[in-house]
């Protein structure tokens, strides 16, 4: 007991000078809010340019149409596959079709860094009575994280993504790579 009290006293003495307040740079808040303002814009309004060449547009359309056929013919197992990049030509807008199978769900939404983790901005539609829900989203190239929200409250990682993680919010999410030669979410 005596040792413990001594330790407490020692810790208090060490901690005392560390309790002095720390003053941040005067421009801190402005920097944070600039970053926030940038993050709050839709991706197409951020400081980045995108081009869609005529050939790229044709590839985009062809790839999307192919996926629609694939989705219609694939059945539940195929529908449950990981997100697929429909068009992967560099410097184009990438269209990703997200598919989630949950026959008992009343609603499914997609939340990710590409829509500000909005619970409502990107709802999935029931596909064909098979219990599959789908949505197609234009996404910029790069690494993205996303989750499905079932019935407005349950956050679920994509069971078919090749990588999932539990973030600091305790929420399971999945990782998607878009662009380059990537053909699947990972």
């Amino acid at each position, binding site marked *: 007991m005596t040792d413990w009290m001594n330790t407490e006293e020692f810790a208090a003495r060490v901690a005392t000078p560390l309790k002095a307040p720390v003053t941040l740079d005067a421009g*801190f808040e402005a920097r944070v809010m600039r970053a926030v303002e940038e993050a709050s814009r839709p991706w197409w309004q951020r400081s980045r340019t995108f081009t869609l060449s005529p050939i790229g547009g044709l590839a985009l359309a062809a790839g999307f149409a192919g996926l629609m056929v694939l989705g219609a013919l694939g059945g539940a197992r195929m529908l449950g596959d990981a997100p697929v990049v429909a068009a992967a030509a560099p410097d184009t807008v990438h269209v990703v079709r997200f598919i989630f199978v949950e026959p008992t769900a009343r609603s499914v939404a997609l939340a990710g860094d590409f829509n*500000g983790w909005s619970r409502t901005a990107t709802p999935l539609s029931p596909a064909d009575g098979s219990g599959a829900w789908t949505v197609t989203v234009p996404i910029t190239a790069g690494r993205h994280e996303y989750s499905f929200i079932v019935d407005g409250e349950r956050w679920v990682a994509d069971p078919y993504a090749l990588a999932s993680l539990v973030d600091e919010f305790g929420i399971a999410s999945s990782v998607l790579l878009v662009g380059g030669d990537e053909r699947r979410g990972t």
Partner: protein
Amino acid sequence: MDGLSDAELVAATRAGNTQAFAQLVRRYRDRHARFASRMLGDRDDAEDVLQSAFLRAYRGLARCEDSTRFGAWLHAIVVNECRTFATRRGVRERRLVRDPMVIDGVASAGAPAADSALRRAIERALEELPVDQREAFVLKHVEELEYEEMAEVTGAGVSALKMRVKRACERLRERLQGVVDD
């Protein structure tokens, strides 16, 4: 907006009012600046990490399940960001310079220079702790959190946190022998 609760500010932010989030930044920045600074030992690094933490909080606000507990939720993000930064920096640099002259100088220094020198010596000793022990010590003895609160923001168990604090104290006592009279 000063009079609005955290939950009201979170709701306004979710509705698109970024000024509401600015108020949350003002409300919490100083509280977390000290923790980040003690964890990282550098004010510029602390500012970078805090900025990153606030941005992560903004982006993840939809996932703040209980907006009345925004403060604790944000605190967990700050702790996590600091831990990640400190760990990466430690792996990348391993640059801690053991400088016995600093401590020896403190031991023989007289007031008033001793105060600032003492703090530098303590900060240096703190920086030499493993990240998890440093985090536990600062949360317990500088931020004065209860162990249950520490468990909430770190995700670690209470018994593990007690052990980390105990080991941190032992190491600090070794390192600061003759500097902090015990």
